[in-house]
């Protein structure tokens, strides 16, 4: 284990202690939201960083997971867990389908197609207001009746850690190697007998399934969802988190999500300027430190250690 890995584990350990050492509820709430973004940003980096396919539908997929979970709960009277799983399945299956449909597209063409899918999802959720209450938003039952902030915090911490570990497991397997080979060169990968069609679609589906899980949990935590969670602005926020953390690595991206959410709250006096500053930082990162804050940190510690 490198020094950097120890530092990361230290962060996670510290995170697990926070409720015990009397961190105010307000901060637990903030961190819980941060963990939601951690899941979302790392699911996005799973696709962009490893398979080299850019999707702008990730926020919409999180929203899909949320709405499917909430609506199946409301209209089919399902308990929370099965409805959450249905949300994950819906996002995963739609992602698989989009991944398959867009196999031949790359770069900006793929970006535009995913913007279109994301926006169609958002518009549909907004338009079907008999079902979803449109932009007024939908009341959602809690994940656990009467649970306090610490409980939610632990659930999100566990979910985020589990998601990232699952992603790492996938990426360390031979499938992860196929993903990266595809990112480098599709024809070259196919020439070696790797089923590019299958793995490209599956990568899309996995990434959106994780986004769907994040969205479903988020819905039952904040207990009010609106279509704005599916907007391109929200997508931009996720992108900034992944880029600032480091989009080439699911772990960096996850930490980027938490980091930005913490900063967002800590710098409240700055008002709207915070988001503009995040945009500037994301731009500078892309240009000068493409591995993000945590990639830079890992390098730094490697040289020291």
């Amino acid at each position: 284990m490198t020094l950097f890995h120890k530092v990361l584990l230290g962060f996670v350990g510290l995170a697990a202690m926070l409720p015990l050492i009397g961190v105010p509820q307000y901060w637990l709430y903030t961190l819980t939201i941060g963990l939601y973004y951690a899941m979302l940003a790392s699911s996005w980096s799973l696709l962009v960083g490893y398979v080299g396919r850019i999707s702008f539908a990730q926020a919409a997929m999180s929203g899909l997971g949320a709405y499917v979970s909430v609506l199946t709960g409301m209209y089919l009277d399902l308990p929370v867990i099965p409805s959450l799983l249905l949300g994950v399945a819906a996002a995963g299956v739609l992602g698989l389908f989009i991944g398959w449909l867009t196999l031949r597209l790359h770069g900006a063409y793929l970006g535009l197609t995913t913007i279109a899918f994301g926006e169609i999802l958002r518009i549909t959720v907004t338009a079907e207001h008999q079902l979803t209450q449109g932009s007024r938003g939908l009341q959602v039952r809690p994940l656990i009746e009467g649970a306090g902030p610490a409980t939610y915090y632990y659930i999100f911490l566990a979910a985020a850690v589990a998601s990232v570990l699952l992603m790492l497991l996938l990426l360390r397997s031979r499938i992860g190697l196929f993903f990266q080979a595809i990112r480098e060169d599709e024809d070259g990968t196919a020439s070696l007998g790797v089923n590019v069609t299958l793995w490209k679609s599956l990568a899309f589906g996995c990434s959106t399934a994780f986004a769907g899980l994040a969205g479903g949990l988020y819905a039952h935590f904040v207990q009010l969802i609106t279509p704005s969670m599916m907007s391109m602005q929200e997508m931009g926020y996720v992108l900034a988190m992944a880029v600032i953390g480091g989009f080439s690595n699911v772990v960096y991206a996850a930490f980027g999500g938490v980091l930005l959410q913490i900063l967002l709250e800590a710098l409240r006096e700055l008002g709207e300027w915070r988001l503009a500053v995040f945009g500037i930082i994301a731009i500078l990162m892309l240009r000068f430190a493409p591995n993000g804050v945590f990639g830079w940190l890992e390098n730094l510690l490697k040289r020291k250690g």
Partner: protein
Amino acid sequence: MQPQLDISNLSKSFGGLQALKGIDLSFQKGELVGLIGPNGSGKTTLLNIIGGYYKASGGAVTLEGHKTDGLAPSTLARLGIGRSFQVTKVFKRLTVLENMLVGALADWRLSRSSARDKAHGVLEKLKLTRLADSPASSLSGGQAKLLEFGRIMMLDPKIVLLDEPFGGVHPELKRFMYEKIVEWNEAGATIILISHDMGSIFGLCRRVVTLSYGDIIADGDPETVRNDPAVLEAYLGDHHAA
């Protein structure tokens, strides 16, 4: 005897341009064939159709008695067709070893540790062991060509398609690659070699096929093809004929 690979009346057009004009060719198991022709004569296009990267506009490719029409490149690779690319397609941000593992691991029956052992074996033969853990982006042009070679060796292909494997390669490395090609061929693989390097073609191959503007203008043993006036004309152009 049924040919291992049979190409019949194969044509390919890109918009108005006819890159292949209905060619017939067949290859027996264990042949070592050179494929030559001027720039743009359709050599790479032919390889791309055999490998499943392009769809033919007409005609058929038959592999061991089965039409390959509609099969994906990855499926054809699994059926035993290995290839290299004119413009090297190594995975730059993966290590040399990882590059080697991709093809082996595509076969799920092979465990990761045996794939690794096999890769190390091949790397050693190619004298690339020292670079196993370096990113492929750090390789020289010649080393990248060798790595592509090695990746194909990992597949144990029945048919090997090589598109300009010597492009930009140092003479010493080139001799090393000749040995590998012969070794491969002696182990039973059919080899189709595209090159503009006539020394290599005529030194290695027992049969040479010449393409010009999408047509086969010569097919036979090296001596005959070398002295064929049509081949000379294709290479040297009209002013020579006139």
